[in-house]
């Protein structure tokens, strides 16, 4: 749905040629806006004078909905924010509730390592779409198919673990709901064998591709200072040369035990951010490799009767377990009065949950700091003075997801 409107403006360019400034409405239904983003562009010929983004077309009221349900019930809503990496959102939420309950230290090692593996799979999953659709927008269709092929492989693993492809709703407060499936390890190892080849393939397709380089290099530039000031996070911040990653600076899930690097770009342009994402996937592979080698046996959920649901076998055979199950489902968990914020390094940037508890089973306030919401602000600055076609590059390189922007 594109509409063009002409506004006559004073032809004061000095050379006697009268010019018209044009207003172009891009979106909300436009294939390159990755959802329902609407940008109103003020153009002078091909040059963007001003870009005004309009959002909110997907505002579903998740924060308000979550105020009316119990903590466990909030989990499925977190999937539907950043649906490209639903599992990362889930884990972020679970970690926040665990922090609120003060039970971080009780989570068994097996659950933590499994969560790291899934988190990194989520990162790969998201970057695959991010790069694939970005390439598609710029006319490179093949890369999209290569990326989606890999995504399907990750879906298979997720499906094996939790039964759903996209909307996982997987771990629970206190650990995993079920033990990992038997062939989990084998599947992951298999994936680790195949996946690096795909990265190389995508790398070959794009990294030195002349069209790709020309369309991304030097485009949608943002300096480190501006990036910090605007509150960008994730690859968008690191692409500008700021080595900030919550996995390093605030190592949740024992990320400090893993050996990996934070790829940092130098130029702050779309190409830099693309390179960051590519390298991040390689680092994710490294993390998963270490994690799967150290996946310990043992319990998969914490031994906390008032928080973690009893095992299904026990529910069917023991009266106390049945009652406990009933009470926990019916009443929900009741964290102490207080408030916490916890941020995790989502594929798109810092995803933060801010929970205010009034001592009941429902969150008094749940606030989600979606990384894309804050990142999206940069668009106006990035495309100012650029060509119209570069707007597409800028949107793609920011790697936004509207579910998270609007919530």
């Amino acid at each position, binding site marked *: 749905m594109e509409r063009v409107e002409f506004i006559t403006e004073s032809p004061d360019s000095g050379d006697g040629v009268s010019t018209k400034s044009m207003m172009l409405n891009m979106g909300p239904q436009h294939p390159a806006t990755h959802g329902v983003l609407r940008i109103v562009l003020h153009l002078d010929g091909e040059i963007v004078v001003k870009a005004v983004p309009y959002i909110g077309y997907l*505002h579903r009221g*998740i924060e308000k909905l979550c105020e009316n349900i119990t903590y466990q019930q909030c989990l499925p809503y977190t999937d539907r924010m950043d649906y490209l990496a639903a599992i990362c959102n889930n884990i972020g939420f679970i970690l926040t509730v665990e922090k609120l309950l003060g039970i971080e230290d009780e989570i068994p090692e097996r659950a933590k390592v499994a969560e790291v593996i899934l988190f990194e799979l989520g990162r790969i999953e998201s970057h695959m779409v991010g790069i694939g659709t970005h390439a598609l927008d710029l006319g490179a269709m093949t890369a999209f198919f290569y990326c989606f092929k890999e995504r399907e492989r990750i879906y298979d693993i997720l499906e094996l673990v939790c039964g759903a492809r996209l909307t996982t709703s997987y771990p629970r407060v206190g650990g995993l709901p079920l033990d990992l499936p038997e062939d989990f390890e084998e599947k992951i190892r298999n994936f680790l064998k195949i996946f690096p080849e795909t990265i190389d393939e995508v790398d070959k397709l794009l990294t030195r591709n002349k069209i790709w380089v020309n369309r991304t290099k030097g485009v949608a530039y943002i300096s480190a200072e501006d990036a910090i000031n605007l509150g960008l996070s994730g690859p968008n911040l690191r692409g500008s040369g700021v080595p900030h990653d919550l996995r390093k600076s605030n190592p949740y899930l024992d990320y400090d035990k893993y050996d990996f690097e934070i790829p940092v770009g130098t130029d702050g342009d779309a190409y830099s951010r693309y390179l960051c994402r590519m390298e991040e996937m390689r680092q994710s592979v490294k993390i998963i490799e270490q994690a799967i080698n150290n996946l310990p046996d043992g319990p998969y959920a914490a031994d906390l009767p008032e928080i973690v649901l009893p095992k299904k076998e026990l529910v069917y055979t023991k009266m106390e377990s049945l009652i406990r199950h009933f009470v926990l489902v019916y009443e929900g968990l009741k964290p102490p009065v207080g408030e916490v914020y916890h941020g995790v390094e989502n594929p798109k940037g810092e995803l933060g949950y801010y929970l205010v508890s009034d001592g009941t089973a429902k969150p008094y306030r749940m606030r989600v700091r979606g990384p894309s919401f804050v990142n999206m602000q940069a668009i106006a600055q990035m495309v100012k003075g650029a060509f119209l076609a570069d707007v597409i590059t800028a949107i793609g390189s920011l790697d936004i997801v509207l579910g998270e922007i609007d919530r």
Partner: protein
Amino acid sequence: MNSSLGGDGFLTTTINYIANWGRKNSLWPMPFGTACCAIEMMGAFASRYDISRFGAEVARFSPRQADLMIVSGTITYKLASVCRRIYDQMPNPKWVIAMGSCTCGGGPFDSYAVVQGIDEFLPVDVYVGGCPPRPEALIDAIMKIQKKIENEGAPII
């Protein structure tokens, strides 16, 4: 080919049948993807499921060139008028698939901003439940639409 034509090189049919046959095997979808379901729709278009096996791979992002609208993802009131307008811009005959619980009936979002089912403002031909439905379900929906076209069709002029 020749043998099936009975040697004479022609076959008899009705205009309706041949038009419906053509329409059903070359559906041009207009993917109106807004949220999570759109990712599964992309999955259906991509390598593994490959919707082109059903003749429906020519995704048109301009409503004027499409005859099948796949509404996938949550539709909020703010977006509803856009959705309706895009539908109005599509030429006849046209069909609509409501993909995902959100489009069928609001899905998990019983909230102040979300339309509780797109049939509040659009005629829907096939509903696909699921949150999100798997790509197979979308393909099934397309086959249902094809059946519908085959059986009922639409006036030719």
